[in-house]
């Protein structure tokens, strides 16, 4: 069953050199619980495609259906609500809120979705990523690997239908990166979440069920 579908997706932007096509007529269909890696050189349009699929940006043309909802028909707040309910994110630079503790960072998406069990669910998920002892720490008190674990816990705590990961190991050393990727895939397998992952790393991509190659905005 399809959980994420893109039809003839195009993104054009104006630049000093004229109109640039960053994503060029891309169509794809991703089934539930599938794991898909989008790979390609820098500037190939991987992150833009991810942003479009997650509803963070709007396409110039084309249509996206996420968890049964037509993303392109929703306004900014509508897309935000859909993300709150069905989408999780893991970023290269972790993106934790510096003024919130690890626990509060993980609680945040649950609280945004007005969930009453935020605290218990966040504690449980932090335990699953091995940070039960560090719940009261602020991001600046955690190492890079620990920060990314918090980010992964935050991504999974809402039990999203789709998890988007943008270069999740980009800011980590090789050893830590491998442990983070293992954690990500383990949790993905346990939760039956659909994983859409943008990466440079061939080894990481190889762990996915399907690899999509981007080149100059086109999906090969």
């Amino acid at each position, binding site marked *: 069953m399809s959980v994420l579908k893109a039809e003839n997706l195009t993104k054009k932007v104006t630049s000093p050199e004229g109109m640039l096509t960053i994503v060029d007529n891309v169509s794809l269909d991703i089934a539930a619980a599938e794991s898909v890696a989008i790979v390609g050189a820098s500037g190939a349009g991987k*992150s833009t495609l*991810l*942003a479009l699929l*997650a509803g*963070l*940006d709007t396409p110039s043309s084309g249509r996206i259906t996420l968890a049964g909802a037509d993303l392109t028909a929703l306004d*900014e*707040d509508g897309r*935000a*609500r*859909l*993300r*709150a*309910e069905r*989408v999780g*994110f893991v*970023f290269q630079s972790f*993106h934790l*809120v510096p*003024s*919130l503790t690890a626990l*509060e960072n993980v*609680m*945040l*998406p*649950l*609280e*945004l*979705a*007005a969930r009453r069990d*935020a605290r218990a669910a966040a504690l449980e998920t932090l335990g699953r990523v091995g940070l039960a002892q560090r719940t009261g720490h602020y991001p*600046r008190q955690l190492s890079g690997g620990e920060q990314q674990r918090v980010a992964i816990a*935050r991504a999974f705590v809402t039990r999203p239908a789709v998890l988007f990961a*943008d270069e999740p190991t980009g800011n980590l050393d090789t050893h830590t990166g491998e442990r983070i990727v293992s954690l990500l895939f383990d949790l993905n397998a346990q939760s039956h979440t659909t994983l859409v992952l943008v990466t440079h790393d061939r080894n990481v991509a190889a762990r996915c069920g399907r690899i999509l190659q981007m080149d100059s905005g086109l999906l090969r």
Partner: protein
Amino acid sequence: MNAFAIALRTLLREWKSGELGVLVLAITVAVAALTGVGFLVDRISIAVDNQAGEVLAADLVLESAQSIDDHAMREAQSRGLQFSSKTGLLSVVFNGDASQLTALRAVSAGYPLRGKVTVSNEPFGAATPADGIPARGEVWPESRLAAAIGASVGSELSIGAGKFRVSRILVSRPDQGATFVELAPALLMNDGDLAGTQLVQPGSRLTRSLLFAGPRDAVKSFADWLKTHKKESERLLDVDETAPQIKSAIDRSGRFLSLASLVAVLLCSIAVAMAARRYVQRHLDSVALMKTLGATRAFTLTVSLTQLILVGVIAAVLGSVLGFGAQEWLVIALKGLLKGDLPPPGLAPLGIGFLTAVAVLGGFALPPLLQLSRTPALRVLRRDVGPPAPLVILAFGPAVLAIGFLIYWVLRDVGMFVAFVLGLAAFVVIVAGAGWLLVRLTKRLRGGVGVSWRYGLANLGRRRTESVVQLTAFAHGIMVLLLLAVVRNDLLNDWRRSLPADTPNFFFINIPPDQNQEFAQFLKDRGAERARVLPMVRARMTHINGKPIDDIRFATPRGKEFANRDQNITWAETLGRDNEITEGRWFTPADTGKPLVSVSTEYMKELNLKLGDTLQFDIAGDVRTATIASVRKVKWDSFQPNFFLMFAPGLLEGAQGTWMTAAHMDARNPKTIADLVRRFPSVSVFNVDDLLRQVRSVIDKALAAVQSVFLFTLMAGLVVLIAAVQASREERRFESAMLRTLGANRSTVLKGLLAEFAALGVLSGTLAAAGASIAGVYVAKRVLQIPYTPDPWVWFYGLVGGGLLVSLAGWLATRSVVNQPPVLTLRSA
């Protein structure tokens, strides 16, 4: 979980980042500046309200410069009202050779009809209510008077031709002026003793009052009766009329002080804008992230707004507390000018505080926050993406509206609003322009100084806009303080020095016409240089060009006051050297007896008169009309007898009046004055030096209050500095780390920072000293018309004071930058 909870949870942690602290500080200072003045004005107004019923010592007063017919008293008696009388005049009171110009109040039995007189047994002693009025032959001098002439209970005082025993010391009387101390101290005496002093002669300058009291309706109907039966020269005062007059004067002073504190509010607004901008910069990522995680725009906006409102409420409360403290300070500054203890203030000034906080935050912090909420979620993936650029009207419109609203709210007059805004804008443009040039100049200096100074000066130039804003703020605050504290004294002293040595220092009024020659001889015998002697007649203007005064609308309050008050008029054949005819011609011998009048330029302007207009006067019941034949420019600081209105000779000779003159006498010989007063008891003597000293002490106190308000301007300048340092802290921290990594030691970096702030302070001081000197020269040339050399101390205080103040504040604000080990900074960069 809602936006409020998240806002509350993060608020305290946000505190460490600094900009919320700057916001609180800026709003606190702004609120304190306006509420400080607000609380003071409120307390004085409440004092006036509380004492309004007693301020006249009666329910109704009929006042005149001449004697009042008995018919009013008989009518009051027939209506069953209480009544009493009071005569007020100025005269010198002696205790041996010690003398003091005194406001004599001769009262009849029954006084006061409302309120209480309190007395004590020693000067400045504990007050007890008085039983009646002074008995015949006894007087009650005020403590201030007793102290000045060394009198106590039992002393014998000379007043005119009479001698009186001090039986009590007067502490207070209800009609002493509710709030402000009068210039001359008072003495209460029995009305029956007045004749014996021989102070009262036909035409003497005095005020007679009839006091009435009774049931409200009876008083009101009697007041109506009086309005139709009183003479033109008599004035009716009731409580409803007196209190608003005092309150309107207080309101005007309050508005002036509020305007002064508005400058501080404007500066704080700049600090708020700076802090808000930094808050937005720091929160772009968080907002994008929250949106990525599912937050709507309304949600993120609610979080920021809640924090903003909390900051506003905290700052408004703190500011109001600080304002209350500042107001206590103002009361101390005004001590001696305000009478007795003021009642506690009401809650209204708190409204001013909250309104200020709302206006400043709404105008300067809200637009950036609205922008923040428009940050796209995409920023989590692309750091170069920010909120779309706002419309200019949305970015600056609220700020302009907020400031416009605050200024208009203080002034409440369109003309003054436009003038103030234009003046302020011109001032800011000039000072900021000069500041910009100075900052540019520092670039040239960089080649010739050491590494620390080069680093400091380079910082000034690199953050030029911020430097100019801070420079403008400090220059303004320091300039006003220099003007009030240094230049004012210089000007006053230069003016005093510019007066010729033989400038009259004594005025003599109420010289009986038949003693005129004898008086002149007396002065001459004692070597006094005598100025011209002029007659003085009391008159009241009734019509201009046939139109009653009451039906004329005057453009200025001063014009109205000129038209309505008792006028002192004179006549003369010759024109004094200190008078210059600017229009028309002076009287010729052929004009003798013709109805012509010469009017001073000030009087012409305030009453909007022109040559050829006719003025009608009531002179003790006689009606005289005269045509304006000439306009005179009078040099008032010649200290010669001068009048707004001078009639042609031969027209007023029949009118009852006295004469006046001025003379230069050795003030160190009090015996001459004592002899003079004994010989001519009805003559009132004014020592110009004493009067000037008293006026100066009042002005000094009022200016102390103004200076205190301008301290807020300086505080606001410091807040702007802190906001600017805060905004550049990360950058500074990184620079400091880089310099230290490259081998600079801690003290080199610190010297560089100090150099930057010292340069900023010295440049502000330069601008301030230049501005204060230019203002001094302008006032000297245009207003006082005296030569004036700018005081080099102004430059010393400006440069050294500015340098020290800004260096200290800058060092306090940036020392953490230097203290942090470079490795921490570089690791987190």
